[in-house]
């Protein structure tokens, strides 16, 4: 039975406060609840919100209202203690905060445009590096992190937040706990993005992929993510009106907890100033932490929240429940348990211990099944609704997005297999793999969600359905045009690098040959990228035009329902204990009760406990990999001849990191024949104990530099920075002329050396007190070398000298012969006398 009681009134105040209406409802509810067959009142009110203000206005005009009263004879449906007298039920009114969703949706579109445009620019710069006109802020090494950060944290990040704010409120049947925290979250996150957009082109970076931002920004991220966003989310869960936490919420919980954990532990640094921090981990351990973070950033920032999105928006768009809820539970826990182990597969054949690498591979392969379980669950949700897919572009976006999820999660485990990884690693294959996931899965799921959301958020129909369809087809072709040539490029690179002729020598000894061979494919990528950006432009235009067609005032439905009771006794009659009268031990009876898994159902209703359990699952897995890596000394055998960098080399290393050289050059020679022939002796774990951050890289657009020291003359490097093509014809490296023109700030080297010292580099007191002098002396030695080799004079103050010092040091310690011990110099002695004359600094 259903009764409809019209209400009307004028509301003032905050969105959650409707005093006049509340009094009407409270007057109505006891009366209705006193009528025994009726045990629930749902009051549905539509309030109107003027739309010309970007934020929520201070008042709401009530446009229309009605109370819907539903008869229900199922008394056991009422929570314990609340049935019976209607006066015991405390009715509450609430509305969903869609303003924050609108804000995040708008930011998603804006940053989507910026992120993809930045990607297009770096794709062009890769082929035409001279387009930067020598401006250091526009070099590939500095802009590539800007592109990745914009795509991941700005575009995908804002998309996640839009999805979470929209779906969480509706899944919990409550408004977000705090509007203030929601808005703080929005503006805090946009501030992080703007700070990233400013600092990365300026070369302020940690030099770790997807974790480039320096420590002050990292602290801001941690606060905004964990306390503002996480706190608001958790409190919303606690105050929800839906007893069961839908599986999408589980994925959101895992996202919030794990990303916080990854972010904090990977970014532990010792500050060496406001714009520089040194990782507390070094070499192998830093690499391990970084890829524990890097891989799980993909897992818990680009996968789990998007799966939550899928589990909410796909059923909404298809208007049917998810295919298998049981499968979604298995999907969730499998991912949480497995993903966290998989990071080491990024470090196959490196100096990482073999056992860690194998463990990473094993868990990566295991990931395939749950991932495909999720994909199948998504696609089968459309069972019986495929006719809708043909007509609805939103569903088309979702179907292609989920298909790309399936492709990427098949390819990922495949690439983690060592034999395949030996071929694919450092090549463009990885880039193609990443982009099939980012453009196909993250991009298309976001676009599908936005096209579903925009008409609902702006309360009008999409400006152009045709343009949505155009976006879909343009985007799909764009992805294929991007990934197919880049897969081919990666395969070509991998095969050319390892190809040996009949005499056992490299068929392509010059790396540039292999780069030149794939440049036509890079052009095709530019075309694909251009089409993808065009698709985002279509979305932007459609969104703006739809927004312009919004009503003068947004209608805000207001609902009335009681809060969940704190104490909940399940009304479902307990299933019969078949062992109750059986002649078995009490333990068996207890085990039988435990095996009913009622305890798990209870846990699924308790957000705090659920969060703790998820955290434990992630932490336990992490510790099992981390502890041995850090504690087994044999994992990183020390090498007696490996010594800390000199102050000038440390300054040069800082420049190397700032310029983003790791985006194109690796510093890790794998024990693979073709690599040792090309680059020299394979890298050892003990060689990196002073490398903070490690700079092994993940891609070779240029050659590996692990054994670069002494390969070329210092003047060669000087000319190479000035004009790479002059000494290396066909090079795609941009010129770094500013390093030849700008002076090095010798006084600023001290904090870097002190940070290294505090982190364990064994500098003597004399060295610590004479940092500037030592650096100047080594710079003069290198400058003199350059002059001897035919270079310009008086260049010892230039930044390039420091970078040359660093490059000339790389990989040389392993072959250094021990010098006879020299007496420890005292502080009073002049530094020139204190240092052994027979060991020039440049060779230390």
């Amino acid at each position, binding site marked *: 039975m259903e009764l409809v009681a019209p209400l009307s009134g004028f509301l003032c105040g905050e969105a959650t406060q409707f005093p006049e209406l509340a009094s009407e409802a409270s007057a109505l509810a006891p009366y209705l609840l006193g009528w025994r067959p009726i*045990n629930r009142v*749902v009051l*549905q009110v539509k309030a109107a919100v003027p739309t010309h203000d970007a934020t929520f206005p201070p008042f709401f005009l009530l446009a229309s209202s009605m109370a819907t009263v*539903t008869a*229900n004879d*199922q008394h*056991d*449906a009422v*929570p314990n203690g609340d049935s019976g007298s209607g006066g015991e039920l405390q009715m509450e009114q609430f509305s969903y905060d869609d303003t924050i969703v609108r804000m995040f949706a708008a930011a998603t579109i804006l940053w989507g445009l910026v992120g993809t445009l930045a990607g297009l620019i770096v794709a062009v710069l890769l082929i035409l590096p001279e387009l930067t006109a020598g401006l250091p802020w526009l070099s590939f090494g500095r802009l590539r992190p800007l592109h990745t950060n914009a795509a991941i944290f700005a575009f995908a990040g804002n998309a996640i937040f839009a999805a979470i704010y929209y*779906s969480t409120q*509706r899944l919990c*049947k409550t408004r977000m706990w705090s509007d203030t925290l929601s808005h703080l979250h929005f503006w805090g996150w946009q501030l992080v993005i703007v700070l990233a957009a400013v600092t990365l082109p300026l070369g302020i970076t940690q030099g770790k992929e997807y974790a480039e931002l320096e420590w002050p920004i990292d602290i801001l991220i941690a606060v905004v993510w964990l306390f503002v966003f996480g706190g608001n989310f958790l409190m919303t869960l606690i105050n929800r*009106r*839906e*007893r*069961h936490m*839908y599986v*999408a919420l589980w994925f959101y919980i895992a996202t919030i907890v794990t990303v916080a954990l990854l972010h904090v532990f990977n970014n532990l640094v010792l500050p060496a100033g406001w714009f520089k921090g040194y990782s507390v981990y070094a070499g192998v351990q830093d690499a391990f932490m970084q890829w524990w973070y890097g891989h799980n950033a993909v897992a818990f920032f680009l996968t789990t929240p998007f799966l939550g999105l899928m*589990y909410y928006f796909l*059923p*909404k768009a298809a208007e*049917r*429940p*998810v295919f*298998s*809820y*049981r*499968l979604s*539970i*298995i999907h969730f*826990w*499998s991912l949480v*348990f497995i993903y966290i*182990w998989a990071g080491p597969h990024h470090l196959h054949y490196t100096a990482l211990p073999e*056992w860690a690498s*194998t*463990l990473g591979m*094993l*868990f990566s392969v295991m990931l395939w099944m749950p991932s495909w379980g999720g994909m199948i669950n998504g696609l089968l949700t459309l069972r019986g609704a495929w006719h809708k897919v043909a007509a609805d572009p939103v569903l088309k976006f979702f179907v292609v997005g989920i298909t790309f999820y399936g492709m990427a999660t098949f390819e990922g485990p495949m690439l983690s297999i060592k034999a395949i990884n030996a071929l694919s690693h450092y090549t463009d294959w990885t880039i193609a793999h990443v982009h099939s996931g980012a453009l196909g899965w993250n991009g298309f799921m976001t676009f599908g969600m936005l096209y579903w959301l925009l008409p609902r958020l702006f309360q009008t129909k999409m400006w152009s359905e045709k343009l949505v369809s155009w976006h879909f087809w343009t985007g799909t072709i764009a992805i294929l045009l991007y990934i197919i040539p880049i897969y081919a490029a990666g395969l070509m690179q991998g095969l050319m690098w390892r190809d040996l002729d009949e005499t056992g020598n490299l068929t392509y000894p010059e790396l540039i040959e292999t780069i030149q061979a794939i440049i036509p494919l890079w052009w095709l990528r530019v075309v694909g990228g251009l089409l993808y950006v065009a698709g985002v432009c279509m979305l932007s235009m459609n969104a703006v035009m739809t927004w312009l067609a919004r009503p003068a005032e947004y209608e805000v*439905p207001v*609902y009335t*329902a009681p809060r*969940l009771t704190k104490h*909940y006794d*399940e*009304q*479902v009659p307990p299933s019969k204990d078949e062992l109750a009268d059986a002649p078995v031990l009490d333990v068996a009876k207890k085990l039988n009760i435990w*095996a*009913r*898994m009622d305890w798990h*159902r209870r846990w699924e209703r308790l957000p705090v406990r659920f969060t703790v359990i998820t955290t434990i*699952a992630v932490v*336990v*897995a992490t510790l*099992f*990999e981390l*502890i*041995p890596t850090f*504690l*087994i000394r044999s994992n990183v055998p020390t090498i007696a001849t490996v010594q800390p960098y000199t102050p000038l080399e440390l300054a040069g290393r800082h420049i190397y990191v700032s310029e983003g050289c790791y985006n194109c050059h690796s510093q890790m020679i794998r024990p693979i024949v073709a690599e040792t022939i090309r680059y020299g002796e394979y890298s050892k774990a003990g060689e990196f104990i002073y490398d903070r951050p490690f700079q092994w890289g993940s891609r070779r657009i240029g050659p590996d530099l692990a054994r670069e020291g002494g390969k070329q003359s210092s003047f060669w490097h000087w000319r190479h920075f000035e004009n790479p093509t002059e000494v290396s014809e066909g090079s795609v490296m941009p010129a770094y002329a500013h390093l030849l023109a700008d002076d090095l700030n010798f006084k600023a080297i001290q904090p870097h050396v002190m940070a290294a010292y505090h982190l364990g580099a064994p500098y003597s007191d004399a060295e610590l007190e004479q940092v500037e002098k030592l650096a100047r002396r080594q710079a003069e030695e290198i400058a003199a070398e350059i002059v001897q080799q035919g270079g310009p004079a008086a260049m010892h103050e230039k930044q390039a000298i420091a970078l040359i010092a660093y490059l000339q040091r790389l990989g040389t310690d392993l072959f250094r012969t021990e010098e006879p011990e020299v007496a420890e110099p005292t502080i009073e002695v002049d530094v020139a006398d204190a240092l052994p004359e027979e060991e020039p600094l440049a060779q230390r």
Partner: protein
Amino acid sequence: MLKDLLTAIDFSDCAEFALALFVAAFLGIVYGALRLSKQAAERFASIPLSDQVKDPRHE
């Protein structure tokens, strides 16, 4: 003492123990998921379909 303890522990078994731990947890979860009644699974799955509070709002 802590140092001695850490030195004495053989961490090389961590990988195998971790794998066993995972398998046990995974099997537990699969078993738990399969124990979920069809009625409850259908109710849970239909939660996103409505923005309004529906009865019954609990299991």
